[in-house]
């Protein structure tokens, strides 16, 4: 393979410039607001609502673990879909492709069955 390193790293100069520019722009903007804008140090400034009822808890609430569990299970099948699309295109040409995908989906299915049996789908 004739890949010139200069080309490889030459391409990276653009990336470097982008990174530097990308850093300069927001930093400049933030610095400018910090220096130019009027700033109030009042305590209520940080409150969620400036008037009306007082907030009871912190604004950030923790999300239950079970959401993550569902998210992970979802991602697995999401990625599976990603594999199935290209498979559709070669399916007709290769007889073994059917069984390959069959094995792949069976393993995923077994995983889901395991999670189900383990009680991971139970909303507790």
């Amino acid at each position, binding site marked *: *393979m004739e890949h010139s390193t200069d080309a490889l790293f030459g391409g990276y100069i653009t990336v470097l410039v982008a990174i530097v520019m990308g850093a300069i722009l927001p930093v400049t903007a933030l610095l400018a607001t910090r220096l130019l804008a009027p700033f109030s140090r009042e305590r209520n400034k940080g409150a969620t609502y400036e008037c009306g009822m007082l907030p009871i808890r912190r604004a950030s609430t923790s999300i239950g673990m079970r959401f993550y569990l569902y998210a992970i299970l979802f991602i697995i099948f999401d990625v599976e879909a990603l594999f199935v699309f290209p498979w559709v295109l070669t399916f007709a040409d290769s007889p073994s492709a059917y069984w390959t995908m069959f094995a792949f989906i069976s393993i995923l299915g077994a995983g889901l069955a395991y999670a189900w049996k383990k009680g991971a789908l139970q909303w507790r």
Partner: protein
Amino acid sequence: MADFVVIAPALILLLASGVVLFVAISGPGTLRPVVLGALVIAGVFALAQGAGGQNAEAFGGAVRVDAFSVFFAVLIVAATIAVILGGSEWIESRAQRGEVYGLMLASAGAMLLLTQSNDLIMIFVALETTSIAQFILAGIARDARSSEAGLKYLLTGSVSAAVLLYGFAFLFGLSGSTSLQGIAAYVAAAPEGGRLALLFAFALVAAGFGFKMAIVPFHAWAPDVYQGAPTVVTSFLSVASKAAGFAIVLRVFYVGLGGGDSYIANDWAIMFGVLAALSMTFGNLAALMQTDVKRLLGYSSIAQAGNIAVGLAAVAAGSTNGASGVLFFLGTYAATNLGAFVCVMAVSQRIGSDQIRDYAGLARRSPWLAGILTLCLLSLTGIPPTAGFLAKIYIFNSAIQASGASEFTSNLGAQMVGAPPFVANLVDGVVERWLVLVVVVAVLNTAISAFYYLRWARTMILDEPPETSALRVPAGVQGVVAVAAFGVVLFGLAPTPLITAAQHAAAALH
């Protein structure tokens, strides 16, 4: 189909892992015979592959079974069996025993694949499979420490995987091939413009693998994970996982770079030499202060990884027996560390503590465990008649041999303005043999390590025990430690068979 026969040992373990997981959730049942049976069958299969003496490739060359992979397959399977037998008390007492067995099998199976991989994609897939199983294993005790260990391991592991992938991407970008032979062909052509990029790529790859080997500066996870994870898991990590890490580093760097003859060999020799010296020094100095046995063994494993990395540097610098030195060291290290960890498991299970001071007077409560643990500590220090002594001598010898073969030239002395000529010559003489300096650092570290290893042994032998009741240990555990101790002494007195096997395995890389 033939492809699947080639990777049968790994497949057996991975399938058994699935079976064990399903059996475990469908009700109570005896799992241990299934697990051990699968391991034994896989081990026998691997041995049979090795006895055939034929190299086999599968999946278009992505997997390669040769004497090298067989050596590690046997090592990893044996280590896993020992861990499961030695830790069976703890595992069987857990509600998650099915997961422990299943994940261990999955991790071991993926390790077998890892040592057989000959292709960047295959390497990455196998490495991730074994790592993910280990992340869960580290956190499986579900107490605060164990969870912390699991999370730390997961986070550092993911970052290092990303770094590794970046390095792989560079290698692919440069050579246009994911197979190690393809990369070797690119390197052999010695494109002068590609030198810097190649070094960059290999540095990234070394960083990614450095995490698996736990060498400085990629070691930060090791002490916390070693301490926090259940001891069964820790022993699995410190023996099997570390061996697999070194195996794949050897394969990538040896095959990918053409056995130390390549035009960047000197650069990565220096890289590994420096990493080795740092690892040993840092690991030993940090271990001096430890009071927790598992944390101590964690730092000790960093230091030992440094010793093994001396062998990697020797390989790069052109030693003919550097690779076999690494393999020999790993073999003896497996016996030694397993012996030590199984003793620690058995003792901690009974005295309910991992503190060195609670090991006081162990020699009187259980002469058997204390004696074997002392033997293993001697071996870690490198005192005869144990295996650790010869392993160190052998690996240092390979480094010195490489130093003699190296054509590295120094003009540092000439640049020293005003220095007397003999000083300049001495400086050049030493710098040109810099690998000898690494060995000097290594042997001085041996003296440092003697202090903390033997302080622990002294506590066991000399101090007054808090209570004198004898510790009863089941026959199975006694058997495992006895086999480990036998290995430590056997490899220390009659190492020729293991060295021959290691040389045979290393020759397969050429």
